[in-house]
């Protein structure tokens, strides 16, 4: 009889990723509603200290698998370990954040376990019949599908920022279990040669989720600093329109548009950009478009979801402050 909800917790350099805490919060709610045990599973090396944080985040039980071979994530080792653990413990559901590791690990794990996988979910609810149902976007969010499974365990990855991470409760206690890392030699096939974490946290323009972009209204290269500050608060990439690139304010690699990069972020903030069709051709598929422009007649207002008519030099710094507040909540 399958029991328990497993949250595969992701850590890097002994820092727990925010999405894992989000899942623990949501998992906690569902565990309370269904009477299931919420188990946090962590793999790594020297990870004992994380147990208490995970307890405070809502876990009833923390399983630590501590091994030198697990210090860095590798597909094979982690799949091997988790497969064995899950087969042994037989949870009802296994959840993980849809991060780079999540995307890489869970399909392999799912197939080794012989189960399905609902990936990149933006909604999860308990269900009478199938324990959990998941909502996930398809066609770049132009539609949604609702999934459930009769096969156990249910495996799913959840999109970061779908759920809220509640404040930790330092008084919480959890059962802490140490498991040995049972790694098949056959799974150790990949050699991790190097890891390069970008110095700038700013994501690459093409695949960024949020982009802050500046056009002719920026009036000069030195002014992009205000966009960069805004971008860094929300983890956005910075882009530019052709007018700005032509004027030499930004290099061509930042250009968004027909003759530059085509992007489709969840949020595109256009500052001082008129919205001519050449630019729209490069970002028109953005999920949400925000514009700040002092010309109310600018075409960008016709495609924006939210627009502010105003001086971007005034509005952008204020927006940065507002976003800072949001992020710190």
């Amino acid at each position, binding site marked *: 009889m399958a029991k328990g909800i497993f949250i595969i917790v992701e850590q890097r350099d002994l820092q727990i990723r925010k999405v894992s805490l989000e899942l623990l919060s949501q998992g906690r709610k569902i565990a309370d509603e269904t009477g299931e045990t919420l188990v946090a599973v962590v793999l790594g090396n020297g990870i004992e200290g994380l147990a208490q944080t995970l307890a405070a985040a809502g876990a009833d039980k923390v399983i630590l698998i501590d091994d030198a071979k697990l210090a860095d994530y*590798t*597909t094979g080792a982690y799949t091997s370990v988790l497969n064995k653990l899950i087969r042994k413990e037989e949870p009802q559901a296994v959840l993980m954040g849809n*991060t*780079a*590791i999540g*995307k*890489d690990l*869970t*399909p*392999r794990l*799912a*197939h080794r376990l*012989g189960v*399905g996988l*609902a*990936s*990149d979910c933006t909604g999860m609810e308990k269900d009478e019949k*199938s324990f959990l*149902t998941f909502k996930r*976007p*398809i*066609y*770049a969010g*132009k*539609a*949604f599908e*609702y*999934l459930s*499974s*009769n*096969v156990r365990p249910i495996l799913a990855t959840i999109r970061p920022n779908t759920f809220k991470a509640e404040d930790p409760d330092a008084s919480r206690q959890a059962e802490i279990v140490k498991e040995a890392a049972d790694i098949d030699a056959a799974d150790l096939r*990949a*050699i*991790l*040669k190097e*890891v*390069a974490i*970008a110095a700038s946290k700013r994501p690459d323009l*093409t*695949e960024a989720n*949020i982009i802050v972009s500046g056009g002719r209204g920026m009036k000069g290269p030195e002014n992009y600093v205000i966009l960069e500050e805004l971008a860094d608060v*929300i983890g956005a990439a910075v882009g530019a329109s052709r007018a700005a690139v032509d004027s030499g304010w930004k290099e061509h690699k930042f250009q968004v548009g027909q003759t530059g990069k085509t992007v*489709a972020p969840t*949020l595109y903030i256009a500052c001082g950009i008129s919205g001519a069709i050449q630019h729209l051709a490069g970002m028109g*598929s953005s*999920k*949400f478009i*925000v514009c700040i422009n002092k010309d*109310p007649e600018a075409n960008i*207002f016709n*495609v924006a*979801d*939210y*627009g*502010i008519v105003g001086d971007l030099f*005034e*509005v952008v710094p204020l*927006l940065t402050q*507002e*976003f800072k507040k949001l992020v710190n909540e």
Partner: protein
Amino acid sequence: MNIIVYIKQTFDTEAKIVLDGSGKIDANGVNLIINPYDEFAIEEGIRLKEKLGGDVTVVSMGGARAQEAIRTALAMGVDKAVLVSDPALENADEWTNAEVLAKAVSQLPYDIILAGRIAIDDGASQIGVRLAEILNVPSISSILKLDIDGTQATATREIDGGTEVIEVSLPAVLTAQKGLNEPRYPSVAGIMKAKKKPLKTITLADLGMSAGDIAPKMNVDKYSLPVARQAGRVIPGEAAQAAQELARLLREEAKVL
């Protein structure tokens, strides 16, 4: 070198999504394209062939229209193709698709298998890695760079906030991320030649599988369309006010922050 590229035909990125009478996604009149991420895989496969010799086979699953996508791949320079076409695959999930794909691929010689890291229709990003698990070969997902040296593949892979370099022994499955290369435009000579290149269509029976073998693990209970996008609005007020309201809307209404 025996190179296999798995491709999927998907709706065009600009396609309007509507539900038909039975609540399913309506494919009528929709323009179909090769999944853009698979184009990186095709291009990489052809480049490997040009550099190391051998041939490239494209494998795909789908209906009759999938042949258009395959012909485009052939026009780019792929040598031959296999299409698994069976009505039983219409209600497949990632498990099913991976099992069928693995069966089809196992019938071919392979040193390396390439695919796009994600399909823009289902956005699931599972099949490449599942395939590797079934075939019991290593997988590297989301690669930005690939070097082959004999039977060693070294790939630079994208991870959150950076990259890592991983080395595996072939055969292996690698999934392509945007930026791996610039897919070539098929030449007219290529398009003409493509018409004559071998395209084998097979069914589940040809693979020795029946519908019962491949029952999906996940069920799709229903589909829905998002709330109709509201007309854009201009946020009124002074700069400070407007900024505050915008932040609020982005978090609470748009839910993007």
